[in-house]
């Protein structure tokens, strides 16, 4: 196994060019793709998450590191062995009906993607029926709903109801968020999880699927 220090440094710096060079170097050295990911890229992202949580890294640095990692994963993609799980899980995410706020939702989606989840972003003003339709179509592990208005929060239980009626509720975990949403509200409407910001959304998503 190679030493991935240079790769990790490049990811932390968001230096895509160097990170790709380092990944290519590992590939040329016949490193196993899985090792490059597990021992190179992911620990770097974990370190970034840690720095962010401590307030020493900023959102754009976090996002740039995630992007850097994704570019490297693309390079590795053809080399993963059959059965290598490269996604932590699939998250379908949207802003609920009547609500047009999407900056928070987008940020959550990007952070989850950076942490290794596959994202299906279905946009804003998404009706319960549309959620149902998209869940059927894409078969996600987690459904994330965002609401920034107290007036659109009721669309969350409506969506959960629609998913129940469609017989899909048991196959998925539901995670909700947005400024007016609280832990208590999540319990009340029987969502599985709530996160107050993008950083904790990643932790909660992992928790929901029992992964680290």
């Amino acid at each position, binding site marked *: 196994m190679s030493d991935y220090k240079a790769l990790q440094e490049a990811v932390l710096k968001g230096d895509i060019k160097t990170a790709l060079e380092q990944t290519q170097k590992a590939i040329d050295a016949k490193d196993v793709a899985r090792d490059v990911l597990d021992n190179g890229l992911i620990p770097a992202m974990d370190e970034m998450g840690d720095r962010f949580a401590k*307030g020493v890294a*900023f*959102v*754009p640095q976090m996002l740039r590191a995630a992007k850097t990692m994704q570019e490297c994963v693309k390079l590795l993609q053809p080399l993963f062995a059959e059965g290598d799980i490269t996604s932590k899980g699939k998250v379908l995410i949207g802003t609920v009906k009547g609500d*047009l706020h999407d*900056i928070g939702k987008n940020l959550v989606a990007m952070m989850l993607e950076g942490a290794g989840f596959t994202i299906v972003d279905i946009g804003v003003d998404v009706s319960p029926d549309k959620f149902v339709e998209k869940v059927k179509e894409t078969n996600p592990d987690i459904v994330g709903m965002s609401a920034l208005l*107290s*007036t659109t929060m009721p669309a969350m239980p409506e969506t959960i109801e629609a998913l129940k009626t469609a017989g899909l509720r048991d196959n998925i975990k539901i995670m909700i968020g947005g*400024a*007016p949403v609280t832990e208590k509200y999540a319990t009340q409407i029987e969502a599985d999880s709530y996160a107050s910001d993008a950083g904790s959304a990643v932790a909660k998503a992992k928790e929901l699927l029992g992964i680290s």
Partner: protein
Amino acid sequence: MKEVQTFRPRLKVLGKQQVDAIHASALEILATMGVKMEHPGALAMLKNAGCEVFNEDWVKIPAELVEAAIKTAPKKFTLYDQNGNPAMPLEDGNSFYGTGSDTNFTIDVETGERRPTVIADVANFAKLVDGLDNISFNMSMANAQDVPVKDIYIHAFVAMVKNTNKPMVFIADSGRDIAVIHQIASAIAGGEEKFRAKPFMLNYSEAISPLRFPETIVDKLIFCAQKGIPLCLPSGSNAGGGAPVTLAGAMAMGIAENLAGLVIHQMTNKGAPFLFGPNVSVLDMKSAVVSYGCPEWSLSQAALADMRDELYGIPTWAYAGASDSKVMDAQAGAEAAFSIYSAMLAHANVIHDMGYLEYGSTSCLEMVTMANELVAMSRFFAGGIPVNDGTLALDALKRVSGTPGSMFLMDDHTFEHFMEAQFTPKLLDRSRYDAWEGAGSQDMYKRCNVEAKRILDEHEMEPKSKEVLEQIDNIVSK
């Protein structure tokens, strides 16, 4: 002595060169990238006026149309109070301060706890505003959780007009509730035409950065233009989130969005009143919160006032007196004071969000009460220094210096002028230590709490007539 004009202190952050460059960039955005216009009627209107429509509902707006809209937009207009008296003449860089809209939480005035807002909070904030001299207009300050969501903005509006006669800035969800709100307003004014002649409310709608105009928002924009309801259309072009992270770029984009709205507005009804300016705050890069206490927002709106003076002439929309702090503490005081004072010196016109805590999530009666005092303080400062024989006071000096043992405190000149020559705070405490301790060692938060409660207890707004109240109830119950 020859008369000397009093100089009004003025903060300037842009010169003509920068103003022209930002404006040129906004025009370039509109002419080359265009906006996404999701309202079929408005899209057709723009197309008929010669705009290029592409990608279904995107439209490029040429500079001529923009310049024409700027030309026909009123350069001054007045908001009246609900009794028809002129209250906010928006001209000459006059500054007026008011509260903000929909918060999720409020700091309970009795318990000091943060709790979800209810409709009684809307009423309380309106009543407080009615009783505070330096707060010129009212907004809901709460998104009440105990009224039906469908008509939430109608309920908020009714709670407001029942508790204040001051001018108002209101929110509506769509073309449906805004029509009901307009009916209520017309009932108060004594008819639609009377309301049009003396409007007492301004609608707050928002385009979506970057460059997107949803149908319901344009519905409201057109309705306001037709009915002569003044409106502002600040998109949330917060730097680093909805807009470029650099303020010049965020402003250019936000201004482009505003100008696109203005074009539709003026095409619908030339000369209808429009308040200019996007909300250019920042997305904080640690918390990912859109800040309500940052210097960038104050700076961008000062720049906007410069754009008004150098170019557009149209009165501006601004913010102040808010904070990202969770409680009304020193941070809240610092952020409120900074923004109130700079907005005043920038000569911004309609300044909202006074009394917000927690980046606009929580409202606080005490914070509004404090902001009221900070406006008074800033207004005093912004009044400048009158220079004339009376204020130079050589006569007084002659008298005092000629009388052994005398001092200015005893002189008639002091007696005659101290009221206007000095700023007399009400809540900012200057008492001696023992007196302060004797009065219960109250800090600013506590003093504002006592004052807010006193106003809620004692203040009586001039009640609306029985007929008007009946009409309102009829409209609402329909």
